[in-house]
């Protein structure tokens, strides 16, 4: 009996483990090793150079520019996306006209809003990035021709061509495509909060702002925290949008350069695979620091209801 059980366990685990080990675990481990070598990626020969890559990293201006952009994305994107997500979800769930006997009511047609908001989420990031590349086109793009149509002909920014604007254009696209996900996520969380909590608060004279900050937000805190981690990981990646959409790619004057795209160019264009993995290790460290901070700051006692 026991023998049969272990054979069954081994039989079920061997294939998933083998595939996972070969294509995920081993490349990660190798990457850390290669970060200490001068491997070009073009030939099998390389030598171990110790911490030379890391010293080079320290003096690499483009690296620090990318880190700066990643940190900016990491601060702005989750704040804006989750903020908008919470706002719209709250509007959907308690912004409705009060009906008889109900303390709070959802707006009419909230289902349709959620369906529409979720559209970008089911599209490939490649489609979204291409779409906005055309929309941002300074001559015939949707944005500038809209500006002309409403009489703002003198404004017409260069969007992606303007070094001061390009990164904000990238952020806008990422916010645009992700808000719907959080609206649906928070909306599901909010609808499971018992109605009598709101009733009690309204009877005590709380206004809607107070009910949001005193009831909704604390009870949703776990979901918000998970969402924050998701969005942070998205901000640290942002490879596809930068590679497909921005000029260069990487933006005019490195204005949209991020770690993931810099790594890609070093590895697959410049033949510096060893240095690229060093950049990857830096990205891993930034990711771990971020996750650590969110977990530490977000730790609260879990509320159940």
């Amino acid at each position, binding site marked *: 009996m026991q023998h049969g059980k272990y054979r069954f366990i081994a039989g079920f685990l061997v294939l998933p483990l083998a595939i996972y080990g070969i294509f995920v675990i081993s490349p990660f481990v190798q990457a850390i090793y290669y970060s200490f070598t001068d491997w070009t990626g073009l030939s099998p020969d390389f030598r171990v150079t110790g911490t030379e890559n890391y010293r080079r990293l320290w003096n690499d201006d483009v690296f620090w520019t990318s880190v700066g952009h990643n940190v900016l994305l990491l601060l702005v994107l989750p704040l804006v996306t989750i903020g908008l997500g919470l706002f719209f979800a709250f509007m959907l769930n308690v912004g409705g006209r009060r009906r008889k006997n109900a303390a709070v009511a959802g707006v009419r047609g909230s289902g349709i809003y959620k369906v529409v908001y979720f559209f970008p989420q089911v599209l490939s990031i490649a489609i979204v990035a291409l779409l906005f590349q055309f929309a941002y086109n300074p001559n015939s793009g949707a944005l500038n021709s809209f500006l002309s149509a409403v009489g703002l002909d003198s404004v017409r920014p260069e969007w992606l061509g303007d070094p001061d604007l390009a990164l904000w254009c990238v952020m806008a696209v990422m916010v645009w495509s992700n808000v719907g996900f959080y609206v649906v996520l928070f909306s599901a969380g909010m609808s499971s909060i018992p109605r009598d909590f709101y009733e009690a608060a309204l*009877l005590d004279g709380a206004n809607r702002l107070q009910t949001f900050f005193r009831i909704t937000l604390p009870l949703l805190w776990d979901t918000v925290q998970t969402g924050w981690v998701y969005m942070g990981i998205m901000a640290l990646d942002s490879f596809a949008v930068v590679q497909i959409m921005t000029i260069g790619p990487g933006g005019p004057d490195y204005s949209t350069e991020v770690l993931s795209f810099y790594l*890609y160019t070093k590895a697959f264009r410049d033949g510096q695979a060893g240095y690229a993995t060093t950049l990857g290790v830096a990205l891993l460290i930034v990711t771990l620091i971020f996750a650590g901070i969110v977990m530490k700051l977000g730790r609260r006692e*879990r509320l159940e209801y």
Partner: protein
Amino acid sequence: MRVRTTRSTARSAARSTGASGIPAQRGKRAEGPRGSRVGSEGGLLNVFSHGVLLLWALMVTLPLLWAVMSAFKTDKEIFTSPWSPPSGLHVDAWGRAWYQAHMSQYFLNSLIVVAGSLAGTMLLGSMAAYVLARFEFPGNRFLYYLFVAGMSFPIILALVPLFFVMENMHLLNTYPGLILVYIAYSLPFTIFFLSGFFRTLPTSVAEAALIDGASHTRTFFQVMLPMARPGLISVGIFNFLGQWNQYLLPTVLNVGDDDKKLLPQGLVALAVSQGYKGDWSGLFAGLVMAMLPVLGAYIVFQRQVQAGLTAGALK
């Protein structure tokens, strides 16, 4: 402990206000100052909330509509009047995108790869998740966390060595290679989600099947998998969309012939090549062609898709 206190304080708060005469106010004086204040605030708020909600709905749909409109225009119209509707239904761009620009080929390639990888992910993921969730053995927790850790690492770090691993195994630029990689990178979430799901299923049914003489394997396929159907559907939708829309992995690992590209990377290639030719309408046609099937399927299965994509974050 904390759980109980919060709940009971909230409840007792509700009850005590209720007991101290509020019901009387509700009865006759419901139209009094408090009632009307809340009511009018609700009305104003309702207008405001519909306003902002509608604004965002427009911001989401207008770019998509603009793309659909552009796909039916001539190149000249796209340049001179981006926001006016097309002068007629010009569909020749669709033919160019579908046949000459390989869109039909890209669709087929994506179908082949995703069919293989989705089946593999679901089978292998549910097997591993089941064993890790329901059986005690040395190393169980270690393996579980090994798999789950894969969710939070930046994939791009692994891609540089992975490129050469694939090259050495002669899997670079091949469909079997892509299928295996898609499976490998989908396993962490699939195992995380499904093992949580398997843990919630009752043990009695599986035990009954074992007592009746079914093997562990048979119990899994004929008893446990059917019971886990809701979870399998959620994670299946999640994986399908993730793999169908995948851009990073094929961009690095599928760099062979142009007509072997998968849909998202093929679309980017098409944007570059049609851009050189100045064939903007063909480009928009390709974009819309790639967009509509997914949006259509989503509208039909909206509830399941929304549940599937948010399932991981809601746990």
